[in-house]
């Protein structure tokens, strides 16, 4: 597949992601925040596509935008929003927040300055068509242990959630 108008799409998707991320924290209505978050996640999926990682993009859409965010919305809608609206949006933690933002920003700047040297030289071009297969081979090959640990963790979380929910019935 030949890429079309790459710089345009890159800046467009980045702006979309950043803009919606900003909306997430500024929207007064929690549902609007969640919707902005979905937009952000979709923008991210587009960025993954541009990185020649279609599988990750697909999973991003399916799991984050289609699955997890629906649950988010679910919870937000069941919660009484009227009170949330009355609450002060920016609480007194803004100092700590600023601090965290500065540290994170410093980290980013540092990474940018040191440049490519920080990353392993993995940028051998992966053939687009076999992308999915390679992810599969990596997950079930060298990273098998991490993969299994993650799935076990999720299983525990599921069981925990069921137990907690059952108590209330």
């Amino acid at each position, binding site marked *: 597949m*030949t890429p079309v108008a790459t710089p345009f799409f890159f800046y467009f998707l980045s702006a979309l992601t950043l803009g919606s991320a900003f909306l997430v924290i500024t929207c007064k209505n929690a549902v609007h925040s969640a*919707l902005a978050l979905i937009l952000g996640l979709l923008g991210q999926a587009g960025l993954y596509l541009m990185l020649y990682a279609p599988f990750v993009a*697909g999973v991003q*859409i399916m799991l984050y*935008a*289609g699955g997890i965010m629906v649950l988010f919305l679910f919870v937000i809608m*069941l919660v009484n929003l009227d009170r949330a609206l009355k609450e002060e949006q920016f609480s007194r933690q803004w100092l700590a927040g600023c601090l965290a933002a500065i540290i994170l920003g410093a980290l980013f700047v540092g990474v940018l300055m040191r440049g490519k040297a920080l990353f392993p030289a993995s940028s051998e071009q992966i053939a687009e068509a*076999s992308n999915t297969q390679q992810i599969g081979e990596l997950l079930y090959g060298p990273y098998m242990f991490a993969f299994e640990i993650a799935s076990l963790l999720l299983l525990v979380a599921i069981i925990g959630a069921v137990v907690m929910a059952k108590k209330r019935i």
Partner: protein
Amino acid sequence: MLDALTSYLSSDTTPGQAGNVLWALIYILIVFGGVSVAVMAMNWLERKALAHFQIRLGPMRVGPHGLLQPIADAIKLLTKEDIIPERADRLVFWIAPLIILCASFAVYVVIPFGPTHAITDLNIGILFMLGVSSLSVLGVVMAGWASNSHYPLIGSLRSSAQMISYEVAMGMAVVSAILMTSLNRSGTGTLSMIGIVEAQQQQQIWYLFKFFPLGFLAFVVFAIAMVAETNRAPFDLPEAESELTAGFHTEYSGLRWSLFMLGEYAAMIAVSSIAVTLWLGGWLRPFPNALTGATWDLVFSLVPGFSFLALAAVAWIGVIRMPKDPYFRVQTLGLAAFGLLLGLIGLVLFAPPVRERIQDIFWFTAKVAFFMYMYIWYRATFPRYRFDQLMRVGWKVLLPISLGVLIGTAVVGVVF
């Protein structure tokens, strides 16, 4: 310019893969236009078929046998007052139908109507389809919430719970079909929609019959889950008319409501296309493995033309049976013209160059049409499930079956 147009025709890839923007646009227009027409036809067909199931006639007034009814409906919906409830969340209320519409139309980007008749062929095709169609849940949830009313809220909660639950079983069934592709001679599997059909061609078997009964079971699970996924009877709880008036779109009217309907029918066609692609051999004609040879190819390539001629004949029988009263003259003429149109299409389909390129689309459409008819049939026959029963079917019946099929497919695939 003209060269660019015609040179593509002789190539054998999809416009998306060829990077041919112009043809991609043309394909998008054709596909989306075709889907819209199909939705209208489906609308008419559903009303007619359902009516005949129920010893009624259905629409008879607008055009001969109500053929123009969908157009009349469309005009009515477009000119209807568009009401937004006063305390609704206007922005979300406005976006929700668009999301559903976009989600169900975006899926068509990867649906292969033939080896080259797709807008594009993504190598994550099936993943893309599942992902994008799962986005329509968002629209449902938003519509229910934004209406600021109890019935839509309950409807949307039901709907999203239902869609998420059935997506799991559906995904498992799809994965078991994808596993089958990896067992072809080349040794690697594929997620591409075209690749899946080609794998079936190579293995010379529809996945419906592969590893019998595993493929069949997976297909059945998918066929049930897809009805639930599109909120159709007997899983139409979100829109359960007798309980929740109209579920999540209770407060919608006019254009916005019609967008929901358009989205729903488009989604029905889309999931049926997935089922056809994965299990029924996509665009492949019946018996490509057994009945081979030039003669059989010719015979099967003539079927589209003949079936259109048969439709034309039915229309002409209708013309003959019309009352001779002058009051019915316009209707009779209309039906005659319609029959003539069908006949002409049939004749065009006999022309060799058209025949070659069109027959894939025909077989694909015919298989999808079978599913569409099943949808109507379900609706006429079954009572509605209750919510807890629906969840039970989803989680306790379909999910275990599909998991078992998945494991079984893997085991059988490795062993044999």
